[in-house]
């Protein structure tokens, strides 16, 4: 699975167009990866989607990694996986986020799949997506405290689900919408 640099079309295109915002690139096990600056995420994502040479029409996956136990700063990494059906390529874009300021621009308007992925990422890691129109928890319930996939969230912590009173309130029959 060795890939030479000349084959990394997207990496070289990004390096040419955004010379200052590409922090690092690698191709471990054939997965083309670029690490970019947080403030250029929107323009790079737009470029990846719309440029003829890239045309990544599909956002395959969006998630985060917590590197607390590796003592890495910045602590969080956002990971985006894109797929180009036209060119049959994949790319991974990573953005590093500080613990103190873990917010990033939402790419909500670029792919429709982003909405729930960002909600899940917010739910699990507490990363705030600026300009996301509906940033609520998705897998956990609203009363849940903390963000379970953070490494400092204890495995065995238990949280009571809800007060009985609130359940009764919610199921009280109300005709108005």
């Amino acid at each position: 699975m060795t890939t030479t640099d000349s084959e990394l079309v997207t990496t070289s295109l990004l390096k040419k167009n955004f010379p200052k915002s590409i922090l690092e690139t690698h191709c471990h096990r054939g997965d083309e990866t670029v690490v970019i600056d947080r403030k250029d995420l929107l323009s790079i994502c737009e470029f990846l989607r719309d440029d003829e040479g890239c045309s990544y029409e599909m956002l395959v996956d969006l998630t985060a990694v917590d590197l607390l136990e590796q003592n890495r700063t910045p602590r969080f990494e956002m990971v985006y996986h894109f797929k180009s059906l036209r060119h049959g390529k994949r790319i991974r874009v990573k953005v590093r986020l500080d613990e103190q300021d873990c917010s990033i621009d939402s790419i909500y308007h670029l792919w429709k799949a982003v909405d729930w992925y960002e909600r899940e990422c917010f739910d699990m890691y507490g990363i705030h997506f600026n300009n996301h129109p509906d940033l609520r928890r998705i897998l956990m319930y609203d009363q849940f405290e903390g963000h379970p996939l953070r490494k400092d969230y204890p495995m065995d912590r238990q949280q009571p689900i809800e007060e009985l009173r609130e359940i009764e309130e919610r199921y009280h029959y109300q005709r108005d919408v």
Partner: protein
Amino acid sequence: MSLATQQLSSLVTPPPQGDSDTSIMKIEIGPSHPAMHGIVRFTTYLDGELIVGMEPEIGYLHRGFEKESENSKWIQVVPYTDRLNYVSPLLNNIGYSMAVEKLYGIEAPRRAEFTRVIMGEISRITDHLTCVGAASMEVGAFTFFLWFIKAREYLWELVEEVTGARLTTNWTRFGGNATDIPDGFFDALQERLDKVKDIMDECDKLLTRNKIFIDRVKDVGTFSKEDAISFGFTGPMLRACGVPYDVRRADPYSVYDEIDFEIPIGSTGDCFDRYLVRMEEIRQSISIIEQAADMMPAGPIMTDERLMHYPDKKEVYGNIEGLIDHFKLVMEGHQPPEGEVYLPTEGGNGEIGFYLVSDGSGDPVRVRMRPACFNYVEAMPAMTVGHYVADIVPIFGSVNMIGGELDR
């Protein structure tokens, strides 16, 4: 007015007074509803019977798969993956193990890969049979559910012969499989496949040109190619929209590049197209299994790479390397080298991708599974708004939502 009518009318809520916006009715469908395939809730807004708004709520089956995995050893994650898409557990086993193998940079022996292809395709057939059977039952064709479940049972018995369990298979290991196929397996396989083919032909005759069925599913849940791509659709859902994207062909893994198969596509992306695509994929999977069975090479089913598998007992008791390897694997577990990989595989209802991050210590840093049906449920409002409330049932049936995979 008779007494009975008076009594009846007192039970019915009086119509809303005034011109306030009371024509929209809010109905909660699910979470505990037979058509909700497990547990998902749709808050539906209706104007008469027309759906004008919908909001899915998920998370009822969230078990913390990723958290559990990140607090386990690498090999301990394999049984957890059975519980993701529990209709085709082998495909999850294979996807995860191949991702770890990619992290190591090794490949399983060819016999193991061919066995994986056979078992994976059996799982894909069971997945599609469940989806088509359940979806047709919900629109009234109860016979097909029973027949398809019967066909699924034949295949699950095969799975049981090889792995020892029908659902909780826990079959793959890093660099190979836990068990080889037993003696006489191929005869049983061919016999079962013939039975499944017969059932398929019969059901095809009864259902594909059945007017009652077509009326319920044709032009229902239509989805455009562009929207499907933007929503991240994969698998049969995307192919029904007319995009010939199949991970087995687009990013070939295992030995799929040596096997000849076709990718069925639809045209409009409605529920009928999804049904047709799944039916054809079952036939293609049968053909893949037959080809792989013919090509099955002899040889080992486990890699001979050190620190990947438990050494033979002869090695453990006979020489020092075997003993040390055994000790290190038991005490420290697998230690994939530092790095990160994403491996996409074609699951039962779309692309299953495992994103793994290792720091070389033996404890996973990140185990992320890309759920295929996450995007489908997200797109449910886009698919249902503008349809009638009865159309939710065929649309949601064709989506093939699996709670274990959706909520993880």
